[in-house]
């Protein structure tokens, strides 16, 4: 496991009980609850790739399996994830950046005091709750 993720792992599992660590490519998968009426389901697995430079560099985007759509049947803003080693999944365009395109990711030595995997997963939940806006 990536050494910085290993530091955070017990915290990740305590907040996201379904969290799984997977290899090739190294990633964390969790099941997230979805707002009823917003999507075509009430729960979905997602995957977040762990960048080699984590925690200095932030995760970028997240992956969803096929079949997840908005309640009206329209698709999420996704790209085929085969190129990132996740065939059958789709990469959702989601970036922690400000209006100038600069990263808002603020990590610290003690992961509890800055951005970390739990905060990233929390941002994804908010993003999904905002209908990917």
């Amino acid at each position: 496991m990536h050494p910085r993720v290993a530091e955070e792992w017990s915290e990740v599992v305590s907040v996201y009980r379904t969290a799984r660590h997977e290899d090739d490519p190294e990633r964390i998968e969790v099941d997230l609850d979805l707002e009823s009426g917003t999507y075509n389901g009430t729960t979905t697995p997602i995957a977040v790739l762990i960048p080699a430079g984590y925690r200095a560099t932030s995760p970028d985007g997240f992956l969803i399996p096929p079949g997840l759509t908005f309640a009206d049947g329209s698709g999420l803003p996704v790209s085929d994830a085969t190129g990132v080693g996740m065939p059958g999944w789709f990469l959702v365009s989601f970036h922690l950046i400000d209006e100038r395109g600069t990263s808002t990711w603020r990590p610290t030595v003690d992961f509890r005091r800055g951005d970390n995997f739990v905060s990233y997963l929390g941002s994804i939940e908010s993003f999904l709750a905002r209908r990917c806006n």
Partner: protein
Amino acid sequence: MELRAAAVDLAGLQRGLFARAPAEGAAFLAVEPAASALVLRSFRVFTDKEYDAASVELSVTEGSQVAQLAALKRAGHALVEVHTHPGAGRGVRFSLFDKEQLPRFARYVRLKLKGAPFGALVMSEEAYSGRVWTDTGVEPLTIHPVGQRMAIPDWANLPSHCSDPRANHRFDRQVRALGVDGQARIQALQVGVVGLGGTGSVVVQELAHLGVRHYVLVEDDLVEASNVSRLAGVTRWDPLLRRRKTTVARRTIRRLLGRVEVHTPGSLRTRTALAALRDVDVIIGCVDNDGARLVMSELASADLVPYLDIGVGIEGEAPSESMGGRVSFYLPGGPCLACADDLDFDEAAEDLESEGLRNIRVERGYTRERHVEPSLMPLNGAVASLAMMELLAFATGVRPVIPFSRYDAMQGRLIPQSVELNQECVVCRPANGMGDRHRVERYALAEAK
């Protein structure tokens, strides 16, 4: 086995241990295996209250030992026990009591710390003696101090390895400047050069002129026609013959020095190159991207390898508004490039992302535009030479290293920078002295089978 430790930590250890002199002192070093060596992560000198007053020999109370071992176990570190024999001079040795007790203590500690190596050191003010217990038996433990040469305590100072009189003749003018010992230290250096472009090719040429005999050259690019104007040692035929930059660099070295050791493990992001860099005496980064700088910064911090980084920049439309460069020298125990704010993490993230992710970002318009950067050989040469002066200071101790400086080529000024170690640095603090457990090989890309 070698214990690599930052000079500043060794100096701090010495101060703490000999504060009790002429009474003996003791400390526990938290160490990590790093390839074939151990690296020092942190240390703790026992306080007066933690020694067993009833014991004739120096003895730390059982409670303190148990507490410290528990802390090491929680953190997953290995242990090197250190104690002093003040006044024992250069002939300091383990006492008969030590020789009787240490094997038993080694068995106990290795059982507690899941089979990790256990080391023991005995120090006087002038010298030390050490041994280490591993799965394969007991062997001598030597200290490899890294950092500012004048910060290395006398007892830990390594003698230079060689002083070849023939080399002295060839390098006569350098010996006159740096001394026989200084020249011998340069020749014994194992240097990793990452990037063999505008600055790296000049660095290699100067290293060869200085007499460095052990190289790890990390680069996998071919020479292109546009390189001819700025690559030291290149010929106009090299791009036509599709020669590698490593081939040109090796040719430069061997023309000056004959058959010396030149290892070319390929791209930085291979397991072979990353492993090779963990074993050098100094890494010289001559790259043009912060992704590679982040990798080298982490590797250097984890394995306590000094890392000298060179950056040059020319900005604005021609005629350019600014041109200059910087030299940044991470010395273990001191600030790193990220502490100095010389690393752009956003740029590093883009440099390090997979090709697949990059393609998606390009498709979606989220990738920052990168232009072909202007380049001038005199600027590259000037900044590379400034870096080589710091290498000389590091290797020979002719003066203290000035770790961070900037060169303003428009104003013709060299400006030393004052940079403090950032205890909140997300690059060097978590990695510092973590050795194998930092898993720097995660930066290797999948290699073709």
